[in-house]
């Protein structure tokens, strides 16, 4: 880790007094790590701490302090500080990896036994909630429809806004739009849900439906699409636009035929990432779609179900082992869907990234 700046001993010209300070051997950090983990676990076991979280924290502390002290003895304080920083960064890395890996592994572990053909192809209609059986077909269908409709609304709007900002936007309006797009990214999903509720359901008098959920999801999706599309359009080299203008092509045609096709890979990626993000939104769907146990394939009429809301209901309403099992199954399907979308999106980004933009 720390050998980047050192030069092999024999390659150094030996002139006058020694120019190199004492260095610890390369294997010191891993050795200190192994030692402190052993001691940490020992202390944890000896003190009878049941929680492995504590064992880990003790080991981490020992690693930081031990590494610093050893290095300070041999190499001096500056090097010791450097090593300390390195250790802190590694510990931060491990601290982050543990919960994130645990989350993924645990979900797969719990969900894999639940997901099968029956689970994917059946709804909860006629299934006793507190008992076994049932599936997520209605939720899957609802999620796909709601997200699809939201994308149909948000993608064109977001795209047009981005085009406005990059190609036309000058002056105060553009500045305001840029600022509010950024701010809109941070609108909590539950607030978007409340807004649609007050506008669509209370003021305009529509009832619960998949579509009203889509409206709220679209609000969450638009700013993400605008941001990513904007970045991509900025990467399109100006030479392309100028060449097009020089040939007498009008601006709107230049945008539609030259600029957008050049950036289409990145735009697709952005839209897919936005889709992945809204697929997992629970809060707005919960208040607008309302949840149904049966298959409702019409998103414009009546309550529907969606995957995140299904998980929520299985956890909080059913609230027993059968419910948890179904919740984990649905969670696994949801994660697989979202991650798959992410991977495909990034694949597209790599495959069709605009080159020579800088």
């Amino acid at each position, binding site marked *: 880790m720390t050998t980047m700046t050192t030069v092999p001993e024999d390659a150094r010209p030996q002139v006058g007094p020694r120019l190199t300070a004492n260095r610890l051997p390369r294997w010191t950090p891993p050795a200190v790590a192994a030692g402190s983990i052993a001691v940490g676990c020992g202390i944890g076991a000896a003190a009878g701490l049941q929680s492995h979280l504590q064992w880990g924290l003790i080991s981490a502390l020992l690693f930081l302090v031990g590494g610093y002290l050893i290095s300070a003895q041999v190499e001096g304080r500056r090097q010791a500080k450097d090593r300390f920083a390195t250790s802190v960064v590694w510990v931060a890395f491990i601290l982050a990896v543990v919960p994130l890996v645990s*989350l993924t592994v645990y*979900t797969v572990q719990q969900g894999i036994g639940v997901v099968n053909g029956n689970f994917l192809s059946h709804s909860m209609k006629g299934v006793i909630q507190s008992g076994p059986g049932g599936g997520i077909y209605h939720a899957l269908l609802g999620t796909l429809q709601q997200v699809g409709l939201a994308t149909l609304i948000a993608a064109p709007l977001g795209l047009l806004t981005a085009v406005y900002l990059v190609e036309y936007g000058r002056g105060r*309006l553009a500045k305001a739009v840029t600022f509010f797009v950024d701010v809109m990214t*941070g*609108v909590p999903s539950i607030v978007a849900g409340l807004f649609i*509720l007050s506008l669509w359901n209370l003021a305009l008098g529509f009832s619960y439906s998949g579509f009203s959920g889509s409206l709220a999801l679209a609000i969450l999706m638009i700013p993400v699409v605008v941001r990513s599309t904007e970045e991509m359009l900025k990467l399109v080299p100006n030479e392309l636009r100028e060449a097009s203008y020089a040939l007498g092509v009008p601006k709107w045609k230049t945008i539609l035929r030259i600029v957008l096709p050049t950036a289409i890979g990145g735009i697709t990626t952005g839209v897919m990432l936005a889709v992945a993000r809204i697929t997992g939104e629970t809060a707005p769907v*919960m208040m607008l779609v309302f949840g149904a146990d049966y298959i409702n394939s019409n998103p414009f009429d009546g309550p529907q179900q969606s995957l995140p809301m299904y998980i929520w209901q299985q956890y909080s309403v059913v609230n027993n082992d059968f419910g948890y099992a179904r919740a984990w199954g649905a*969670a696994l399907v949801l*994660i697989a869907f979202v991650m798959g979308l992410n991977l495909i999106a990034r694949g597209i980004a790599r495959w069709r990234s605009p080159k020579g933009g800088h």
Partner: protein
Amino acid sequence: MTSSSPAAPRGRERRPRDSRVGDKIFMNLARGAGILLLVIMAAIAGFLAWRSGMALSNNNGNFLTTFEWTPDAPKPVFGIAVLAFGTIVSALIAMVIAVPVAIGIALFISHYAPRRIAQPFAYLVDLLAAVPSIVYGLWGALFLIPHMDGLTSWLNQYLGWTYLFDQTRTGTPRNLFTVGILLAIMILPIITAVSREVFRQVPRMHEEAALALGATRWEMIRTAVLPFGRPGIISASMLGLGRALGETIAVAVVLSANSVLSLHILDAGGGTFAQNIALKFAEAGNNGRDALMASGLVLFVITLLVNGAARLIIARRKEYSGANA
């Protein structure tokens, strides 16, 4: 790209007015989309304010200082004191844990990790940013909470004297501290992703200059990387804060809600804006719904301020930091 060039030489025959009309339509379409966004933002504030006004006129308590939330009672009383407190405290705990760790991970990816690990790991972090919050919630409730017991009693035992970690009631750790930890895990990927991008943009020359002057790697990071990245770190943290403040479902799953306002963060109970809305919404009556809208409006304004501030910081520093060079 080349498809339109054959048409270009014939441009002379074409009346220029055609293209101008097309341009105008297209430009107005694009501008209309931009204006629509502004309208939506204004409408969110407007509609929520409208419903809130209706609720507040029926309120018999002080909206800011009342602890109870009984808007559907014959004599409606509701206030956001507990909710505002819980929201801010849990978000602060999340920030205290997440920001240093996220900076550490970002540095790990950009400066410490061997190349072979760094790239896939950066990828992994991005993927984890996409894990839906309900899944975090489920994991928090069924996996994290049972594992928090030991840590909670440990903190109570050794840090109980700080008041903050004094556990006055025993029970499952469905408290603000656990919520804070869960939120920290949830906002880690977004803070990491943004700071990593900034660290990566630090001019190579700055770093090499520091190293050439004999700085150790840490000294190089402290003198070259962190000062350059500071606006990026601040804005990344504020984006994370915005998420933590507005997080709904994970909090609703993990926290056992009550209307007690207490700085003993290990005691089960408390509430946040978003969690309260999610839990109370289903059984809320007319006035209850409007009251929830009022609390939603407060949440909206808070996140608006936080995000707006973050953006202004980035925008102000952008000109000379070279962050988008």
